[in-house]
């Protein structure tokens, strides 16, 4: 017989604003802060661990203020040092016509949960336009990484006569135009993505059941505005914080500031700040390539009800036939919907592998098929060790992992052993899991591209390639057997979304970790002083999609490699050598004599520390781990590489030579 699940303390149903997916705090924030180690980096790492619990708004403020004070007293060299410990400095400007300063410390306290050292600048009680024009010079000189346009219905003052469709349309169009203008000014001043907010419904407004269809009613105006705003944002590549979705999740009346609006012009209730801040940080994390990408699932009493080893396939609660079975089927459908968004599904279970796989193959109600799972680790070993093994096998860092398990003891074990893995707390009743899990928003994405839908397939194909390599043995012969084609092109409109995504997501194979937005990438495509490469790789196992981007900036007869990023899916395929060969050929055509490379270390890109050395560059400088390299274009010797290279200019050159 299996052990009954251990009910977690405080198993009573928690509201969404209590961040129920996070463990409850133990002890008092005050006491933890008083007991911090004195070395600032040690203190920050204690605070980072502390921030993984569900603190309330008042505690988050204490936490945030402590971080702010810690950072204030540090010398300027502190940021790179913190970055090497995985803590990334991020600056955000919040524009609000209501009060916003009360959010600052709670945002900072939440940001460290995501390993960000947040610096918040607040512009409040003022329309954003005059503030932006007054501060444009400072903004340009010291641009924030993000601008949040924290508009609310009090700033936009949407109103139009009831029942007048044309007037309603006009009011909405004017409000959208206004937000667009603010986004444009903020975006132009900072060159960075702007985060826009939808409007929460106003529970104080007069509204009847017919109002969603009644032009001019508050509900109609809010709804139409929101729909228009998010579409426009997708088109303009702005980011969206869907405040309306958050307010709907907790209830408009709960969301509303009530007393605090009248007393202090707070835009929403203080009890919602923790949830709001967590959501804002998810967007920032997604844009900076720090979203989660892998969901590791337990089997017994998680993916299905019951213990397959004891109950047998027929004894499992799954699908039609029992209420509990339907709950587990719903969980499987949820996992499948994540896979369609590009999330990689894996299984980690203490079980007999043959029996567990038999359930995958032969249970008629299984929604997830063996083929949907990128990696299985089914054995009796420690789950933390198994999750580490999965991370190694699919080449993704543990901080992109989420582990879903019904057993509180396993959750605690994995959380303790692998703090980088997100392990959601779950209510004791499986029928309450999904709302909690979904509200955690682990897999937030800043955009959606075709690659996302294909990603699971990419990882599957990699498993086939690994088998091929094992069969052939010799690495070079294996590479030839793949019959690879590398397609190289400059940045263009068609590739824009994927290039931007690659820039936001690449952390390991990334020489300088510079992040560029779609509009910045579009600007490079038409800048004569910038030479760009996007590359796709295909082979006998399929198309890997766009896997690399390089940006060179010309100065005199030199190219400086501003950025060089590559998907880790194609490591060890000699793609970087082929790209360098292409760079050298293009450099020669343009009279470029030197290619200068730079490596800026972060906590994640140790993989490419020797990238330029491996390509034959000579090191010319080294400062605080940052290294500079030079390649003499004239001295480069062409290599015979195991792939066909296809580039538009290469084709033209061949055509010219042939004529």
């Amino acid at each position: 017989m299996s052990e009954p699940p251990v009910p977690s303390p405080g198993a009573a149903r928690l509201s969404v604003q209590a961040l129920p997916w996070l463990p409850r705090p133990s002890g008092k924030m005050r006491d933890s802060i008083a007991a911090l180690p004195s070395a600032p980096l040690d203190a920050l790492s204690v605070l980072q661990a502390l921030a993984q619990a569900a603190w309330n708004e008042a505690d988050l403020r204490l936490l945030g203020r402590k971080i702010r004070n810690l950072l204030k007293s540090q010398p300027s060299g502190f940021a790179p040092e913190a970055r090497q410990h995985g803590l990334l400095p991020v600056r955000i400007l919040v524009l609000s016509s209501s009060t916003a300063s009360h959010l600052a410390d709670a945002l900072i306290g939440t940001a460290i949960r995501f390993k960000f050292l947040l610096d918040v600048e607040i512009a409040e009680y003022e329309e954003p336009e005059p503030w932006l024009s007054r501060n444009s010079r400072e903004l340009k000189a010291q641009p924030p990484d993000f601008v949040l346009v924290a508009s609310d219905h009090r700033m936009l003052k949407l109103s139009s006569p009831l029942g007048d469709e044309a007037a309603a349309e006009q009011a909405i169009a004017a409000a959208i135009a206004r937000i667009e203008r603010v986004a444009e000014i903020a975006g132009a001043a900072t060159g960075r993505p702007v985060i826009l907010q939808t409007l929460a419904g106003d529970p104080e407004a007069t509204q009847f059941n017919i109002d969603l269809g009644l032009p001019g009613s508050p509900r109609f105006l809010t709804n139409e505005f929101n729909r228009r705003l998010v579409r426009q944002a997708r088109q303009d590549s702005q980011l969206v914080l869907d405040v309306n979705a958050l307010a709907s999740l907790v209830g408009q009346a709960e969301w509303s500031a009530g007393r605090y609006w009248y007393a202090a012009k707070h835009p929403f209730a203080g009890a919602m700040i923790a949830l709001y801040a967590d959501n804002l940080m998810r967007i920032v994390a997604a844009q900076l390539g720090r979203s989660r990408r892998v969901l590791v699932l337990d089997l017994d009493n998680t993916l299905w009800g019951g213990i397959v080893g004891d109950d047998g396939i027929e004894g499992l609660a799954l699908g039609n036939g029992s209420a509990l079975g339907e709950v587990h089927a719903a969980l499987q459908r949820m996992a499948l919907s994540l896979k369609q968004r590009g999330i990689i599904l894996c299984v980690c279970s203490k079980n007999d592998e043959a029996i567990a796989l038999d359930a995958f193959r032969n249970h008629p109600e299984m929604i997830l098929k063996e083929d949907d799972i990128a990696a299985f680790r089914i054995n009796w070993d420690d789950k933390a060790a198994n999750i580490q093994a999965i991370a190694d096998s699919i080449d993704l860092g543990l901080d992109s992992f989420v582990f879903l398990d019904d057993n509180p003891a396993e959750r605690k074990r994995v959380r303790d052993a692998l703090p980088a893995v997100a392990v959601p707390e779950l209510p004791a009743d499986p029928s309450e899991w999904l709302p909690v899990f979904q509200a955690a928003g682990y897999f937030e994405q800043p955009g959606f591209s075709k690659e996302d839908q294909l990603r699971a397939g990419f990882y599957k194909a990699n498993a086939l390639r690994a088998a091929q390599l094992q069969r052939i043995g010799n690495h070079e012969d294996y590479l030839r057997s793949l019959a690879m084609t590398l397609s190289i092109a400059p940045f263009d409109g068609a590739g824009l979304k994927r290039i931007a995504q690659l820039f936001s997501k690449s952390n390991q194979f990334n020489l300088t970790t510079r992040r560029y937005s779609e509009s910045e990438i579009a600007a490079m495509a038409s800048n004569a002083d910038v030479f760009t490469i996007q590359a796709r790789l295909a082979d006998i196992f399929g198309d890997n999609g766009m896997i690399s981007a390089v940006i060179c900036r010309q100065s005199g007869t030199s190219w400086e490699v501003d950025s060089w990023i590559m998907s880790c899916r194609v490591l060890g395929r000699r793609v970087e050598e082929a790209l360098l060969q292409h760079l050298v050929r293009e450099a020669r055509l343009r009279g470029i004599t030197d290619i200068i490379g730079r490596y800026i270390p972060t906590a994640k890109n140790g993989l490419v520390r020797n990238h330029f050395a491996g390509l034959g560059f000579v090191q010319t400088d080294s400062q605080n781990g940052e290294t500079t390299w030079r390649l003499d274009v004239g001295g480069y010797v062409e290599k015979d590489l195991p792939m066909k290279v296809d580039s538009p200019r290469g084709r033209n050159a061949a055509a010219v030579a042939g004529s």
Partner: protein
Amino acid sequence: MAHASEQTSSSDAILARVQDVFRAELDDEDLVIAPETSQQNLKAWDSLAHIRLVSGIENEFDIQLTLAEIEQTSSVRQFVELIRERAR
């Protein structure tokens, strides 16, 4: 919970917790308050700090002040009285 109400109904115990809130919200770990402490004689207790103090006290004691109480409370004595009333 008899124990909890005993604790919250003692004015000294309430005052100690209110002092913790004041220290945290006003960022002054050495601050000592008394029932007489008020917006008139504590400089850091300005209108912005007042809202933080109200929110901190609401969180600490799990109570809710009305808008009128938020507006009218201006001394530690008044806070303590409100908390005692709510604890009953």
